[in-house]
Every structure is written in structure tokens, then in C-alpha cells.
């Protein structure tokens, strides 16, 4: 028996009762990103200034390619979750909030897909 008025219920006011999934996914991707980021940054720092051929050779290694794909997936997922809460906190106009959230979601998915595709096309041999 809810004491929420029917109008309040219809307008969607009150607790959403749903957010734990987001919170947990944010933590899981965060834990994954700790080692992946440290690996990526040190690898990048070690390869800075090298020419295209050397970088392609590094990216062609299967271990590097898989780790990089995992890194990109975790990164864009974590980024999307984080940006989502920022928008929900600061954008108060309902329509603008909805549009911004959709644009960010699609942008993150598109960027992740493009970046992962780039890594795979290098690693699988298309030069």
C-alpha cells in the first residue's frame, strides 16, 4: 500500500528504486581500469616518438591488441556511466537532459566501436 498520490506516481516523482546496477558497473569497470590504465600509460610512454611502423608492430601483437580492446571497452563504459550522472546532476530541463543523455550514449558507443575496430583491423593484418 503506497502513500504516494496517484498524480505523483503518474508524474514519476519519488525514488526510482533502480540504480544499483549502474553503481556496481561503475565499480567493476573502475577495478578493471586500474591495471589496464597503468599498463596502457606506461606502454604509450615507452612508445612515444616512434614511427608508424614501430607502433603498428606493437599494436599487432595479439596480447597488446586484446588488452587494448578490453581497455577501450572498460574505458568507454566507465566514461559513459560517469558522464550520465554528471548530466543527471546538473541538467534540470527534462527534454535537454534526455537529449544530452542519448547523444552521450550514442557517442560513447560509436567511439568505442570505431576505436576497437581500428585496433582489430591493425592486429588482424589489414595494413
Amino acid at each position, binding site marked *: 500500500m503506497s502513500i504516494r498520490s496517484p498524480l505523483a506516481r503518474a*508524474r*514519476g*516523482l519519488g525514488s526510482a528504486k533502480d540504480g544499483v546496477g549502474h553503481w556496481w558497473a561503475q*565499480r567493476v569497470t*573502475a*577495478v578493471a*581500469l*586500474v591495471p589496464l*590504465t*597503468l599498463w596502457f*600509460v*606506461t606502454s*604509450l*610512454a*615507452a612508445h*612515444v616518438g616512434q*614511427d*608508424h*611502423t614501430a*607502433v*603498428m608492430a606493437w*599494436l599487432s601483437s595479439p596480447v597488446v591488441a586484446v588488452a587494448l580492446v578490453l581497455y*577501450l571497452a572498460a*574505458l*568507454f563504459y566507465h*566514461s559513459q556511466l*560517469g*558522464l550520465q550522472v*554528471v548530466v543527471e546532476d546538473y541538467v*534540470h*530541463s*527534462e*527534454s535537454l537532459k534526455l537529449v544530452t543523455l542519448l547523444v552521450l550514449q550514442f557517442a560513447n558507443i560509436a*567511439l*568505442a566501436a*570505431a*576505436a576497437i*575496430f*581500428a*585496433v582489430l*583491423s*591493425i592486429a588482424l593484418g589489414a595494413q
Partner: protein
Amino acid sequence: MSQASNRPLSPHLQVYRPQLTSILSITHRASGVFLSLGSVALACWLIAAAMGAGEYAAVNGLAAAWYGQVLLAAWSYALFYHLCNGIRHLAWDTGWGLDLRTTYVTGYAVVVVSVLLTAAAWLIALA
């Protein structure tokens, strides 16, 4: 759709003195948003590498220019800050370190360690 109400809010930014806790917290959010922007650049770099030596050289040229180096420095600091403070957040999620003294000690540690890690990464890159 609910619109933002016109009711007055109690003042917060105009009233509370900045603390280490609040400053580190908003910096964590700001660094996260800044890193999300950087992830776009990362995707572009990988796509350029996959496209060929010409495109790769063009993107690397932007990174090597003074504004590219400034952005990379800012991005690398944001990364290590977000990483260190993120670990602090994960520790809080387990319930550890929530008392005020530990919060301040770990807070200062985050600032120091993030600077050291950034310096270390740039030393590796420039060596």
C-alpha cells in the same frame, strides 16, 4: 515531464569554506569529464594509426605541437589524479577509511602520488 521548480535553494557555494574533501571531490568529477574528452582524442589516434602512415603522422604532429603537449600534460595529470582518487573511492566503498583523519591523510596522499606518477610517466616518455 517535470520542470525545474522556481523555489529558492539554501545557499551552499556562497556559504561553506572550501575543504580538502570537497575540493578533491569536485576535482575527481572534473577530471573524469576532462578524461572523457581525452578518450575522443585517443580513439582518433588509434583510427589514424589504422588508416595509414600519413594520417598517423598528422595526428602525431598535433600531439607534438605546443598545444598538444599542454593538453597531453593536463590529460596525464587528470588521469593519475582520477586513478588515485578513484582507488580512494573504492576503499571507501568497502567501508575503509571513512573517518575524518584518514580521509584527510589519504586525500593529501592522492595529491602527492598523482603528481609523482605524472612526473614518472613523462620521464619515461621523454627518456
